[in-house]
């Protein structure tokens, strides 16, 4: 079976403006490939086609892109789901500068992540063994620590598009809450102070695009809600 693919192309050394290129690729009948498999076949035809990829199983977060209008990971999106009217349309993640083809510059996204100080802070001297944590305390981290930093969420968020430098965005805030929720962390107060401005958290409009696209099924909106509550409670 032949599949029609329309893919965003931009090579800064050759192109003044980006364009959509139509390509055709043969895929085996009766086997549902992933979008990444389709890309690999396209690249065998045209080695200049550029995208990131690594684990090919949805855990490294390299191949986030806009597939048929929705952000997702190419390696775990089946072609059957991605085809819209018989066509596969691939664009880079929206809202970030494009380096080449489907590769975006993620510096802003990473900077927001670093801003929340995504590491454990605990001023007490560590014990000779692990710090104890009950299964219930540990459960608080489920749905938070699994983030793979693919940026599907933040680049689908209108608030992040408008203020990528000041609004931390769903991915960063999810990690902010991951450390606020960790019973081993002692820096909750400093963490909250650093977020207490009109932009870092409060630009979230609860549009929930982030939740709809997260390939790991995580819920940044809920985490943001928890942070808001913590901030408001402090304000009183």
């Amino acid at each position, binding site marked *: 079976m032949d599949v029609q693919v329309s893919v965003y192309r931009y090579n800064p050394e050759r192109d003044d403006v980006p364009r959509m290129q139509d390509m055709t690729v043969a895929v085996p009948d009766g086997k549902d490939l992933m979008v990444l498999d389709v890309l690999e076949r396209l690249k065998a035809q045209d080695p200049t086609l550029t995208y990131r990829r690594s684990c090919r199983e949805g855990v490294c977060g390299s191949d986030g892109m806009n597939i048929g209008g929705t952000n997702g990971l190419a390696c775990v999106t089946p072609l059957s789901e991605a085809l819209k009217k018989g066509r596969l349309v691939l664009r880079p993640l929206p809202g970030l500068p494009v380096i080449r083809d489907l590769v975006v510059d993620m510096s802003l996204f990473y900077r927001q992540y*670093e801003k929340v100080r995504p*590491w454990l802070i605990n001023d007490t001297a560590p014990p000779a063994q*692990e710090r104890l944590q009950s299964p219930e305390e540990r459960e608080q981290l489920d749905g938070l620590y699994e983030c793979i*930093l693919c940026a599907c969420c933040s680049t689908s968020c209108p608030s992040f598009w408008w203020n990528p430098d000041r609004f931390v965005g769903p991915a960063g805030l999810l990690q902010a809450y991951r450390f606020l929720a*960790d019973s081993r962390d002692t820096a909750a107060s400093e963490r909250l102070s650093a977020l207490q401005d009109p932009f870092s958290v409060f630009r979230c409009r609860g549009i929930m695009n982030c939740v709809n696209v997260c390939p790991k099924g995580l819920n940044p909106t809920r985490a943001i809600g928890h942070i808001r509550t913590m901030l408001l409670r402090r304000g009183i």
Partner: protein
Amino acid sequence: MSGMRTLTFDAIVVGGGGAGLRAALQLTESGVKTACISKVFPTRSHTVSAQGGITCAIASDDPQDDWRWHMYDTVKGSDYIGDQDAIEYMCSVGPRAVYELDHMGLPFSRTREGRIYQRPFGGQSKNYGEGGQAARTCAAADRTGHALLHTLYQANLKSQTVFLNEWYAVDLVTNARQQVTGVLALCIETGEVVYIKARATVLATGGAGRIYASTTNALINTGDGVGMSLRAGFMAQDMEMWQFHPTGIYGAGVLVTEGCRGEGGYLVNGEGERFMDRYAPNARDLASRDVVSRSMILEILEGRGAGPNKDHVLLKLDHLGEETLTKRLPGICELSKTFAHVDPAREPVPVVPTCHYMMGGIPTSVEGQALMQDDAGQQIGVDGLYACGEAACVSVHGANRLGGNSLLDLVVFGRAVGLHIRDRLAEESESLAASDTDIEAAMARLNRLEATESGESVADLRHELQNVMQLSFGVFREEKAMLEGLEKLRSLKERIAHVHLEDKSRAFNTARIEALELDNLFEVAFATAFSALERKESRGAHARNDYPDRDDENWLKHSLYFPKQQRVGKRDVNFSPEKVASFPPKMRSY
């Protein structure tokens, strides 16, 4: 070199996986001026895929547990060619390294007592094989590698390690005295080529599973560090030793963790029989990986496979119940649904042995310094070169790695190499110099690609190489097929030397990277072929139909591959641990 920038550091770590990040963290925290360079953003390294856990005697599941029992299992698992001084170091320092991970914030699963949760893995025992199955693998659900890698990256952010992300190390820079003075590296985003000069270069570039057509490894696992080191003329050790994991998802290659069997899952053949009972009456499905993989292949060869082509077996998990599956194995449920279209709570997962791990690599001392031989055949350290993680062969895994021992290897030896380099640099401040000619030599591959005008494509040649390895150097091996394989590799060598790079653009040119990676895949495959032919016995993962028995008289040894002479030699295994009596070779049964 005219026009080329030089960046200077005390130490550079090539690799941002678990091993590289642990080394970089130790170095940065010790005040050594360090850069960590990685061809992908660090959290996209292959360590992120590790599922089951990190094996270590922290005595949480069993308060009596003892690192010496872990050592015994590891020595036995290695089929007695793991170096006992290194294994002793890993197993005894391990608990400290694991607690450090907890202190950095790794979200381990927990027991009722609040301690780190441990699950049973293959090849684990209590009391030196006498006390039954142990549960020694520390886990964060079935996402331990992800949790470990992100935690280490975060700790490095905290310590302000310098990162050169999406930079590709092309080749080592070596001088006339065979000292390594740094690497030549390419900034993928801009295409700029830079000489990164350092007193110490650490290769932590991970494995090379992509030499096989079917592998659990990430697409980026192309053995770059081993390739660079071989091209620089340094030897590689035990390259015939490749682990085939019993449970790669049939058709996709994606792994489901041994932890599935640790949690109580088991394998059945096409007739529904729990066949491991016949091959390993005691450990059954938790026998060592080499044993289980061979048993599966035998079942398939004897016509008892599952599916229309009887070419795989089934992993049964449904009896564990939905609750255990979602709590302990959530990632496995996700992968099975995506890649095998089955829900493990209802149906078994189709699986086949799949290339998983490179036990061989760059031989190093326990401190992580790379080794070479002097003219008299004596082992000496390579000045300026270090290695850790899957790229290195220290050797703690010998002929067969136990599950969960790789993550431990990464953090223990990543840490050790950092400590060692700190001490070395404090003693000697003389910097190593390379001439313009030395640097130009490291440019050779880039120049060659730049000049190509025609030739075969990278994708085609890579495909062919992977098929040769799959056919001739798989789970079972024999001389005739291997010789044929080697012949094919020889002809591929010529063709790869003339591969065509059509796209010469600079910015984010992944075609150029893939062409460079192809050379490394080839170096690793070639070394594997020579070493596999030379080892005329069966040991651990190296199973030969023509030499079915272990031969301790001639082969209780490491193999060494010398790239310049294309020759294989031997090296003694270390049997002299410091704190315990050594474990002598025994017949290995499970």
